[in-house]
């Protein structure tokens, strides 16, 4: 069994003295683990960093084996961010949330594209926090717990959707939301397709909204918590 493709490093765990088990995210094969020999050597330790795009060659005798990766450096996306604490926190949060939520060996091409776009925009603080929230919404969507933002759950209106029902994940318009404001979750307007302009509380509301559904639909049933890296990113963004 073998394949070759490009993929992003999500996490690196040391294994023995010189090897490592890496988690990567590929377009064709989804999240994949494998052993890299000589990972702590001079050639590889610089490129095996979360967020770096590598050329990967995975090989195993049987498909269910862990397998071994042979890696070659592609784009070093992490290095330019090392001196930027906010962007670095975003990079680590994005890698951690993908690693934390996606099942292994399941291709999610749309998520891969969203993740790739997010990492490319990581030096643009005006843009990446919103892209990060879209990535989390995409994770919910891809794993079958998507938010329904097409119309109001109560009135079928398609305009002026301002809230989300925490029970169903469906949008609610302003007039229907009025009596239940304390129970509903605010919906950032950039998520409902109203352009890309961010308002004051949009990031906070977006992250809160995603955290609510990620925890209840994906993480808590699997006895997991949101990754610490996400919390550190929120601290950095002062949310």
């Amino acid at each position, binding site marked *: 069994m073998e394949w070759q493709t490009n993929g992003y490093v999500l*996490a*690196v*765990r040391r294994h023995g*003295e010189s090897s490592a088990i890496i*988690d990567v995210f590929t377009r064709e094969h989804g999240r994949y683990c494998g052993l890299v020999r000589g990972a702590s050597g001079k*050639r590889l*330790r*610089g*490129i095996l*960093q*979360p*967020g*770096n795009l590598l050329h990967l060659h995975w090989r195993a005798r049987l498909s269910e084996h862990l397998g071994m990766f042979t890696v070659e*450096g592609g*784009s*070093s996306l*992490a*290095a*330019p961010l*090392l*001196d930027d*604490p906010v962007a*670095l*926190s975003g*990079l*680590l949060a994005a*890698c*951690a949330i993908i*690693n934390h939520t996606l099942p292994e060996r399941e291709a999610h091409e749309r998520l891969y594209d969203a993740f790739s776009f997010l990492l490319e925009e990581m030096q643009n603080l005006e843009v990446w926090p919103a892209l990060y929230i879209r990535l989390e919404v995409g994770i919910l969507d891809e794993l079958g717990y998507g938010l329904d933002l097409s119309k109001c759950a109560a009135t079928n209106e398609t305009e002026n959707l301002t809230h989300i029902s925490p029970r169903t994940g469906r949008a609610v318009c302003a007039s229907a939301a009025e009596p239940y404001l304390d129970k509903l979750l605010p919906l950032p307007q950039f998520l409902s397709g109203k352009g890309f302009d961010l308002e004051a509380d949009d990031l906070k509301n977006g992250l809160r909204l995603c955290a609510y559904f990620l925890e209840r639909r994906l993480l808590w049933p699997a006895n997991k918590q949101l*990754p*610490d*890296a996400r919390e*550190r990113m929120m601290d950095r963004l002062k949310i």
Partner: protein
Amino acid sequence: MPHTSAGPQIEQLITLLSRLPGLGPRSARRAVLHLIRRKESLLEPLGRSMIEAAQRIQSCKQCGNIDVRNPCAICDAPGREQTSLCVVEQVGDLWALERAGAHRGRYFVLGGVLSAIDGVRPEDLHIDRLLALAEQPQITEVILALSANVDGASTSHYLSDVLAKANVTVTSIARGVPVGGELDYLDDGTLSAALQSRRSV
């Protein structure tokens, strides 16, 4: 069960040695044979040294270095600079810096770096002790000498936020081309970091 050709004490010695970094069962067996052949000159002194070290080694209450005295020889040295404090990840890093003779001030061993994958959180590191040390009036600079990787960098940023409470200058070691390094052989990340950290000559 592997076939044993020696007594239980020797097998136990081989098993213990094979757990050391760089040694496996075969190399541990060779090492034990070597020790046995030099019983008086190597095996017995080694055994005595190990017992003595195990009894006397302790972690320095000030910096976290390992020594047979507390405070350690570095913290207690009268001629060392008392104004700068170099923060390292592990004792091995402290020893490497000390071997190079590059830093003449004091050290602090953090005990690791923040890591999302390994679940290392700020409370798992000795950050409170570092802050207490940095708040001492004689300390004017804290040098963050952590690994030049994503976890090391995020820990450095976290520490610089924490150390903002203390009245010190926080600096970090440079990243870039190593001495003797040829650009053609360097990875993209190192080249990118080196260019970012360029300075006028």
